[in-house]
Each structure stands twice: as structure tokens, then as C-alpha cells.
């Protein structure tokens, strides 16, 4: 066993090594006497910088040995591909995975904030802030998320064209708690894992059932975060399909939503099959049983593979089994053909016309089935199978030998969907409303397909989460700026508050606390500036200045007295501000759309210019509560396109719970690493250690 003590490692650069010993990444400027773990987090978070905001840059990861390369389009995929094996790398990977698993989005924000707060912590340590005080203050900034919660906007307000009520600075919110700002109930028990075989039991509906959320268009656009609009459009369409036809509530059940990725077609052909969608399963053979046009079919569902060797999980035959015979075995008995005959006979006896298999189907079964007018579809997702089971009354079974009259369902129709050369797909729909929907994602660049699918699911998760929370957070950096302002206020405020937070801390403690708060605020500023700079419109330095001005202005507004904010026009007179807002919001709104490029240049342009205007409207409105005035301003600053009237539609919003959770996880990660002082490596060969002088073998 080897022990390295982290506190005082010297060096000019730290390197994260993957398990083969290849350096995957460097970071410069490491000063002596610093916390190596925090430096690692900071360095790793550098990866997230370019994948933040609407304008993401992809990264190519190449393996030296085989020369194979992967395109990583998000930091989740990036970390997945890197397979970091160092202890801090594992912690970072775990945090990102947990966030992605629970929410499907927000991982980039988490990674960035972890990095930024690590840097803040490093800076604090360097300035001599004692570690326990640092931990206490940083974890005490649970206030940031608490403040964030107060500033959310109800979903209906986003969807209606009326301007949203201004989110108030957290400090204000604590003074005037507003009962209406809280959604009826936020059900947190329904976070479910992305894309897996999770069931579809928990369809999410809006918290307050009285109001309609059927028209989620504006909210969906606000949540698309600059990604191609059609991903979000597909999600909204799917939601409409899954909801009751004339119901008030939009339901989105991700368990019954499947994606079907088809390479080879151009991207703008991404579409949903018409009608109630079905599993987009490829059927390779080009024959179609005649006379099936919309006829109700008898269906059986199989949960395993449909082949002779398939055995259910947990069943294993012992090695010591041998077959003996006193004469030659009869021809074919026990073989695959013999088995296939048996299955076919059983299917024919039951009058089955459609067989859906969750695993693979034996090749010996396909042609004879088709010849007898039976369609065999393999690789159907388990969640789809269960949804069809509910809709058709079929009972899924593991083996063909289990099939009986009870297991056969009815009322399922099949239509050939589209002839895509090798990728011929069928569309299976049930007469009963099963709520199944398939999104077909096409793209002519195979490497981008993964990104398209990820993007679709990110949009779906965001919209689902928004419906679940019933509330949204103003995006485009507004929340961050409010928090920056709040933290700065707290730092400037004298410590002797009512029931002061840390009465036992002396003056020195107070100073240290202020340092911590200011540096944490700095980290948030950095986040907004990076997102803005990533848009490519202005440099990071400019972006930072804009953000600082904006925060200062918030301070001014706050200073004017809270009541004045509601009507106060004065604060918005500043013209530079409108421009800044436009840059910020516009960047977040639609640049991604523009980047997507292929999605129709004209549409993108219109959207982008509208977005520019609208964003300034959104930002100004949410900051100062003057959205009406702002829209005018936005039009003025948005250039010619700002007049197109798209202003209201393209505000940017974030998910309430996702952002809060991402920050919290980032904080957990930083605190965990901050409190770690040593890394112990076990299973080291003593002989290999002779050269390493700073390691101790226990």
C-alpha cells in the first residue's frame, strides 16, 4: 500500500492519467502548497467549458493504440469515453453520471460549477482561509439554491403570452414570501433513469390540474436552449400524442417514447411516423403480408430471445450432463429446425399474426412465419412490450412453449412505415390508447447520430421535468446574476445580523467568510461569462464586463427600494444594458439553432434575430419587472429581425429542480474533495516503488 499526502506536492502541471498511463490532459499554473484534488477537479472541469451554452463544440477523442476516434458532443459522453481512473476523476464521473441519470440534463452546468467552485476554494486556501471555516461557509450557501427556488416562474405564465412576473432577488423573496409563486406540489419521487427499461407507470402531469398546459410551445422553445428546434418540436408532438385527445393536460411519458435512429437520410427528414407510433423496429425482409391494411391482428409478446438455445436468466445447465443412446438418434430431433417447427405449429394453432420479440429471433423462424402470413418483429424495447401488453391484453412470456390462448392479445394494427432500403420499419399501433410514440431521428453523418439522439432525450427530459415541476427558472444567466448579487450583498453586510450566522466567529472569521462569498460569486460570474462568450459574439472579457455591469445594476435596483422595482422605468433606461441582455439571451436562445445549420438557414436566421430581441426582453423583464418596456428595447437592439415579433416566444428558461440539484451536486463534489487530504493506493508492487521517493509503503 502506498500513501501520498496531497497537501504539498510540487510541480508545474498536474496530469490525469488514464489506466494505460497515457496523459489525457494538462493544466498549467499550479502553484506550490495547494490542494491537488481541487486542482484536478478544476482541470477536469476545463473540459466542460466548450460544451456549455447553446454553441457547443464537439471533441474528437482518439485512441492511440487502435487509432479509433469518437466524437463526444456533451461532457457526459466525454467523461464516459475518457474512463478516468484516478480517484478524483472517478468522483467527478460519478457526480456527472448521477446528475445525468436523475435528470438527463444539467451535467455541463454541474461540471463547470464544480470546477469554478474548486478554483474559488483553492483561492481561499491560498489566502489563508482555514479549511473548516471554508467548508462551513461553502456548505452554508445552501442559501443559493434556496434563493433560486424563490425566483421561479410558473409554467402557465411562460406559456401564456402575458409577461412573467419578475423573479425577485432571493433577499427580497425572504422578506415577502409569495404564496402564489410556489407550485401546488412538486413531486420529487418520480425521477427516473433515462432511456432504460424503466416502466412507464409515472406519467407526469402538471401539478395544478385546474389549468391547461396543453400549449407548451413557448415553454418548450424556452427550454430548447438553442438546440435544433425540431428536437423539441418532436418532443412536444410526442407529448400531444400521448395525452388524451381533448384533455387539458399534456402528458409526457418517457417510458413509452422510443427513438429510432436511421443513418443515411439527411437531417431535416427527422420525423415521427404518422398515427399512433410504434416501435421502430427494422424488418429486413422485403415482403409484406397482404391484406393487412389496418386490420386488427392477434399478437403475442416474448420477453426473451426466440431461439432454441435461449434460457432465462439464472438458468444454467451443469457441465456434467451427457446424452447416451442405444441407437442412432432420430433425424433432427432436438435440433433447431425441429424446435422451429414446434414453435410455428404453436403459433399457427393460436392464430397469431404478429410476434413481437424483445431479444433476437432465430433465423430459422423468420421465412416460414412470413410465408404463413405472420410478421415477426425483433428487438422491441421491454417498455414498449409492456405498453403493448397493457393495450392489447396480451401476456408477455419468456418461452414459446408457454404460449396459450390466454397469452394472445388482440387489437393491434401494423402498417409498413417507410422503405428505407435496408431499414424497413413497421409501425405497430394498438387500438387502445397505449400512449406509444416513436421519434425517428435521421442524419447523414453517422458520427452525429449519437449527438442527435442525446439532444432529443435532453429536450424530452427538460420538458418532462418542467411539466413535473410546474415551474421554470429564468435562464440566460439571470439566476446566476441574482445569486452573485445576493452573495455580494451578504459579503458586504456586517456580520452582526439578527441571530447572526456565526456569532462565535471573530472579526477575522468574518473577513474570511466575506472572501469565500466573494469568490463563490466570482465563480458564478465566470459561468455566465463563459456561456456568453461561447456564443462567439463577444469575448470572455467583454462578457465578464457585461455581467458585472448587470449585477451592479441589480444592486442599484435593489437599492432603490423593492417596491419601486415593479414600476420603475428608470433602471431600464440604460441602453448598454439592453444590448448586453440581447447578447446574453440571444446567445442562449438561438445560436445553437444557427449552428445546427442544416435546419433551414432562413428559419434559423429569423429565429435568431427574434431571439436576440426577445432575450433582451426576457432578461430585462425578469430582472426589472419591465418586460413590456423591455420588449420595445429588445426590438430596438435586436436589429432588423427584432421587429419580427418573435420576441415573446424566445425567452430562455431553465428547469427548476435540475439547476438546484446540479449546483448542489457540484458543491458536494467540491466539499468532498476539499476535505480529502490523502490518496491511498493499494496493491502496489514494492519493487516498482524504488524510484518514487515521495511515496511511503505501509
Amino acid at each position: 500500500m502506498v500513501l501520498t499526502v496531497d497537501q504539498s506536492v510540487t510541480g508545474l502541471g498536474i496530469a490525469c492519467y488514464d489506466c494505460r498511463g497515457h496523459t489525457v490532459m494538462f493544466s498549467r499554473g499550479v502553484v506550490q502548497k495547494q490542494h491537488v484534488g481541487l486542482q484536478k477537479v478544476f482541470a477536469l472541469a476545463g473540459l466542460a467549458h466548450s460544451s456549455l451554452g447553446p454553441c457547443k463544440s464537439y471533441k474528437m477523442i482518439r485512441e492511440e493504440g487502435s487509432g479509433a476516434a469518437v466524437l463526444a458532443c456533451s461532457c457526459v459522453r466525454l467523461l464516459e469515453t475518457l474512463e478516468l481512473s484516478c480517484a478524483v476523476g472517478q468522483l467527478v464521473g460519478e457526480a456527472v453520471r448521477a446528475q445525468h441519470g436523475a435528470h438527463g440534463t444539467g451535467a455541463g452546468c454541474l461540471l463547470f460549477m464544480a470546477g469554478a467552485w474548486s478554483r474559488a476554494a483553492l483561492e481561499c486556501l491560498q489566502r489563508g482561509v482555514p479549511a473548516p471555516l471554508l467548508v462551513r461557509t461553502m456548505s452554508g450557501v445552501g442559501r443559493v439554491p434556496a434563493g433560486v427556488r424563490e425566483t421561479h416562474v410558473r409554467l402557465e405564465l411562460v406559456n401564456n403570452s402575458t409577461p412573467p412576473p419578475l423573479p425577485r432577488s432571493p433577499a427580497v423573496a425572504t422578506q415577502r414570501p409569495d404564496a402564489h409563486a410556489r407550485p401546488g406540489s412538486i413531486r420529487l419521487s418520480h425521477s427516473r433513469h433515462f432511456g432504460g427499461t424503466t416502466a412507464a407507470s409515472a406519467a407526469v402531469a402538471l401539478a395544478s390540474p385546474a389549468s391547461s398546459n396543453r400549449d407548451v410551445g413557448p415553454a418548450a422553445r424556452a427550454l430548447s436552449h438553442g438546440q435544433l428546434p425540431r428536437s423539441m418540436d418532436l418532443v412536444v408532438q410526442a407529448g400531444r400524442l400521448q395525452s388524451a385527445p381533448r384533455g387539458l393536460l399534456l402528458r409526457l411519458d418517457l417510458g413509452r417514447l422510443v427513438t429510432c435512429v436511421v443513418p443515411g437520410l439527411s437531417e431535416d427528414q427527422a420525423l415521427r411516423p404518422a398515427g399512433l407510433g410504434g416501435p421502430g423496429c427494422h424488418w429486413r425482409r422485403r415482403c409484406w403480408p397482404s391484406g393487412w391494411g389496418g386490420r386488427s391482428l392477434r399478437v403475442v409478446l416474448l420477453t426473451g430471445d426466440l431461439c432454441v438455445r435461449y434460457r432465462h436468466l439464472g438458468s444454467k445447465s451443469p457441465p456434467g450432463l451427457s446424452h447416451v443412446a442405444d441407437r442412432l438418434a432420430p433425424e433432427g430431433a432436438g435440433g433447431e429446425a425441429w424446435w422451429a417447427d414446434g414453435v410455428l405449429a404453436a403459433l399457427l394453432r393460436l392464430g397469431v399474426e404478429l410476434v413481437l420479440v424483445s431479444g433476437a429471433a432465430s433465423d430459422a423462424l423468420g421465412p416460414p412465419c412470413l410465408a404463413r402470413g405472420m410478421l415477426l418483429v425483433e428487438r422491441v424495447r421491454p417498455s414498449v412490450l409492456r405498453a403493448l401488453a397493457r393495450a392489447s391484453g396480451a401476456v408477455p412470456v419468456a418461452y414459446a412453449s408457454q404460449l396459450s390462448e390466454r397469452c394472445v392479445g388482440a387489437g393491434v394494427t401494423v402498417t409498413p412505415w417507410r422503405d428505407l432500403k435496408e431499414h424497413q420499419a413497421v409501425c405497430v399501433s394498438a387500438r387502445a390508447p397505449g400512449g406509444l410514440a416513436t421519434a425517428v431521428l435521421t442524419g447523414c453523418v453517422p458520427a452525429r447520430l449519437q449527438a442527435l439522439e442525446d439532444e432529443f432525450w435532453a429536450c424530452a427530459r427538460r420538458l418532462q421535468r418542467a411539466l413535473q415541476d410546474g415551474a421554470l427558472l429564468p435562464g440566460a444567466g439571470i439566476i446566476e446574476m441574482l445569486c452573485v448579487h445576493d452573495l455580494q450583498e451578504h459579503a458586504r453586510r456586517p456580520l452582526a445580523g439578527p441571530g447572526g450566522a456565526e456569532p462565535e466567529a471573530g472579526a477575522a472569521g468574518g473577513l474570511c467568510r466575506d472572501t469565500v462569498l466573494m469568490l463563490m460569486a466570482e465563480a458564478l460570474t465566470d459561468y455566465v461569462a463563459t456561456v456568453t462568450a461561447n456564443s462567439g459574439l463577444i469575448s470572455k472579457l467583454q462578457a465578464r464586463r457585461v455581467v458585472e455591469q448587470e449585477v451592479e445594476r441589480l444592486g442599484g435596483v435593489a437599492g432603490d427600494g423593492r417596491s419601486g422595482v415593479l414600476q420603475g422605468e428608470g433602471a431600464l433606461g440604460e441602453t448598454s444594458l439592453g444590448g448586453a441582455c440581447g447578447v446574453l439571451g440571444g446567445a442562449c436562445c438561438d445560436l445553437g439553432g444557427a449552428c445546427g445549420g442544416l435546419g433551414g438557414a432562413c428559419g434559423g436566421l429569423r429565429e435568431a434575430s427574434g431571439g436576440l430581441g426577445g432575450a433582451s426582453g426576457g432578461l430585462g423583464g425578469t430582472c426589472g419587472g419591465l418586460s413590456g418596456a423591455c420588449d420595445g428595447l429588445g426590438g430596438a437592439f435586436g436589429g432588423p429581425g427584432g421587429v419580427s415579433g418573435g420576441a415573446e416566444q424566445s425567452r430562455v428558461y431553465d428547469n427548476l429542480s435540475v439547476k438546484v440539484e446540479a449546483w448542489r451536486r457540484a458543491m458536494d463534489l467540491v466539499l468532498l474533495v476539499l476535505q480529502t487530504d490523502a490518496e491511498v493506493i493499494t496493491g502496489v508492487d514494492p519493487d516498482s516503488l524504488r524510484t518514487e521517493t515521495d511515496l511511503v509503503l505501509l
Partner: protein
Amino acid sequence: MSRLSKKSPALCTDLPLENPDICQKLNVFKQLLTSCFGPNGKLKQVHNNIGGHSVTTSTSEVLLQSVSPSHPLLKFIAASVLNHVGRFSDCGLFAAILCFALIDQAKLSGLRRNVSISINQYLLDICTAYLHQDECGCKVQLDFSSSKNLITLARSVISSKPACMLREQEALHISMLAVQAFLLTVPCESPGNVRLGSTVTVAVEGPPVAQSAVFPGLMLEIPDHFKLSNKNNFQSQPTKMVLFSVSLSGDLFETDEGTVEVYHGADVESQILDQLLVLGRCAVEDRVELFVCQKVIHPVLQQYLNQHDVVVLERLGAALVEPLAELTGSQPLASLLSTIPPEAYGLARGLNVKNFGSKKMLHLEAPGEAVICTMVLCHRNQTLLSELKVVVQKAQHVLRLTLREPSALLGGGCTETHLAAYVRYEGIRRAAEATSSLCCSPTEYLLGTEAFARSLEGVARALEHDGGTPMVDLTHGHHWAVPVDETPDLEGKPLRRCGCGLVRGSSVESWTFLSTKYAEFSPAVPPGGRAAAAQPAVLDCFAAKMNALQVAVETANLLQDIRYIVQDKN
């Protein structure tokens, strides 16, 4: 002959504690454990050299289990600490730190080994006797009529592990759950010999800590698509159930090395399946409504049972078999009999499905009084969750130990400093008697006493990791920690509260720095200190600390007694 390799001679180390190489190792190991101690302790990341799973922890149990030192002396220390933790859960780091401190202090004092050993043993006896006395100043009687002290005890354990990453409210919530779970495992209706029940811990990653909860009965994880049919009436009447610990997947029995010859054409699998179906039919005829198996159930059997409205639950896991059998009164069946003996059936009540984050669970309750409960622990990620699970189990064990000895020791380093003050005072009072019985000179005895007291104070000092100043008051002998950003003031401004929170700064006249010499005094009991009404903020488990004290002293004595280490190098 070329195949014979030469035997290398055994390696013998003389006086291992004086060998600089071994001393360095001991020192690093000491730092490793000491830096983990207390609520401000530093965490350790442990992983293997090929990039395996990394563990982040500061609990002695997890740390010592994952770090396996190769040097025999370190192995010995690790083994005695692990053994202590295995029996008492708490105070593992205390034992390790005290052991190291005793070795260090003995070396510093320059005493002969046998003298130092006998003095340590003598002083240990004084301490043990004092701690068992009723008028002991660092002991609090636990009051079982109120849960307050129990919660404090649990919270001291839980909040002493920073890797759980709990906010104050969350720590309180978890402590209350621990106490609630403990109370649920105490039977209230059975007279005579009382047998405590057990708590099953289920960890769920994702939901916030505040969603953690305790339920009477058991929570069994079920697949996502599991559904209770409406036909059964689970709420009003008890459900008859059967539990199998043998696999019902249709496997052949283990043949070990022999082979089974099967006549061609005979289908072994269908034969076994038939046997399984006979079993299923028997269960259905006996009106079983819940069919549970530790391992896999053959899909055909599942289908058969489902058709007869039997709730089927497979892959229960070995850990849950015993609690489930105890809860329902059933006997786990370990073989495929064709009939199920009637006494094997059990009863369960109130079946319902509960959701926790992404997990779905079936909740079962006992037909009668339940002494089995389930604690569902939620946390944001796996690292935090695994530490939380360990810590909560520790807290529950500590709570159970209070039944054996209904008292607790003051935490926050106060017991250690108090005991040190007592050892100085009482040791010197008994000097004449001790020197004659230990056959040592008075000087040696004084040196030994000072070394022992300083070792105890060393443990209190180990609570501080960031440059703060540990102090001790000269009235009660309690431990006071001055944060690094404050200058300690010996006369002027009094400190606010001592480490355990029992003594207020206003009731103390003078302090001194820990590890400076002070005139020995008899440490006074704080006003109302022993009463059950006293409310210290930090409490330690009495039984665990008592045992840890003995383990530390005995381990240190044994280590000092080692003259040679002989290692076989082959």
C-alpha cells in the same frame, strides 16, 4: 536439481519500535488514521493501482478494510482495531490514536519497557474503575423516558463523519430515524427474555436525504413493472406466503465432479419444470397468495402462479431471507419437495407498493407485533450513500449497546481531557501504593503517569486538524477548542462552550493550553452533570469507548513488548 530454488533466510528485526524505517511507517499510518478523526476530520480516497473503484471515507472500519498494510506491526494494530469495531462499531479511531499516542509517549518518556507497560496497565485499571463509578464526572445516565439523549448519541456518531455530507437538518433527520428504527426493534409485548429485532437498510441513490424514512416491516425491492392485482384483498386480512431459498429456475442439481448420463430423447429440463409445477400447484391449493424465492423462479412457474393470482417475487437476495422468515414466521424451503409442509407457510399483512426515486418496493408488515423494520436511506450519490449507510448502521449498533449499559460518555474530547486530569490527580494521590506494587521508582511512576495522561490528551488534540488551539479548563477538565482565526485568551473573554457542550464558559475561571503542565486538581462534576436532565450536545457510546480504551492500552503494551519480528521471506 535445477528446479529447486534456494530458500532465502528469514528476516529478523531486532527492537522493531526503534528501527527508523518501521518508525516512519508507524508515523505515516498514525497520520493516516489521526487525520480522519472527528467531525472536522479529513477524508481519504482509497483505490488500487490499476484504477479500480475508489472509496472516499473517514471511518476506521471502511478505511482499514480497504487499506491492508503489509507490515506485521501495522497489520497487528489494524487487526485489533477492526476486531474492536466489529464488536462495538464505534470508537475505532479513538482506539488507534490512543494506541499510537501511548507508544509515542512511552518512547518520549524514556522509561524501560516493562515499567511503562505495568504503569499503563495500572492506570488503565484506575480509569476503568473511575468510569464505572456512579460519581464519575464524564458520564451521563441515559434517560429512556425521553428520546433526547438517544438522538444526541446517534447524532454524535453521524455528524462525526464528514463524508456523509449532511447539512445540520439532514443529520438531525437521520439521527431521529436511527432512534426510531432502534425503538421499533425493541419488542414491547414479550415478557421474560427480550430478543431485539433487526433493521434492514435499503440504500436509494438519487432522492434527497430528507426523503429517507423508517418503516415497520420489510421493504422488498421489486421490478419496475410489478403490479399488485386488485383481486387479492391484502389490506384487510393476513396474506399466506411461502419462502424458498433454493433456486426455482429449473436448474439441475449440482453434480460436482460426477457426470449424469441421460438417455437420448429424455428432456431433463421439462422433467424439472414438471416438478416445479407440482410445487406451484401445491402452493395454489394451499391458498398461498405470496410466493417468494431468494433466487430465480422459472418463467413458466411464474406464469402459472400469476394465473392463479399469486404474487410472485423472485431474486430476493440472501440478506433478506432471514428477516423475511422472521417477520412472517415462515421457514425458508431449501429443497424441491413435491409438497410444502404446512409449518413452512408464513403470514404477512398490509402488502402495498411504495416508490423511492427510481426504485419500487413492496412493503410487508408482520401479522403480529413486528420487531423488524426497514430504513430507507436516500442520498445524492453513491459515495455519500455508502458512507451514510455504514455510519447509520454504526449509530444503530451504538444505540443497542445503551441497553446493556444505560449511560454515555461526554464527547467532543471532554472525556479524554477529564480522564487525563483525573489520572494525574488520582495517580499522584496513589503514588506510594503504586510504586510499591509496581516495583518502580517514584520518578518512573510520575513519568509514566504523565505519559499516560498526555496520550489521553493527545486524542482530544487529534480532533483539531486546521491549526486551532485546544485548551482545557482547570475546574472540570473539559476540552475547549479555539478556532484558528481566534486568539485564545486565558483570562479575559471566556470561551463559549466546551467540546461536549455541557459546561458554559461563564462557569469556568481559568483555562490552560492542552499539553502544558498544570497543577493537578480533582476535576469537578459540572453542575447537574450526572443527572439525566443534563443535555450535552455530543455523547459517546459508553461500552464502545470503554472497550476501545482497553484495546488501545493492551495493544500498545503488546507492541512495546515485541522484541523481534521474524519474517519468512519465502
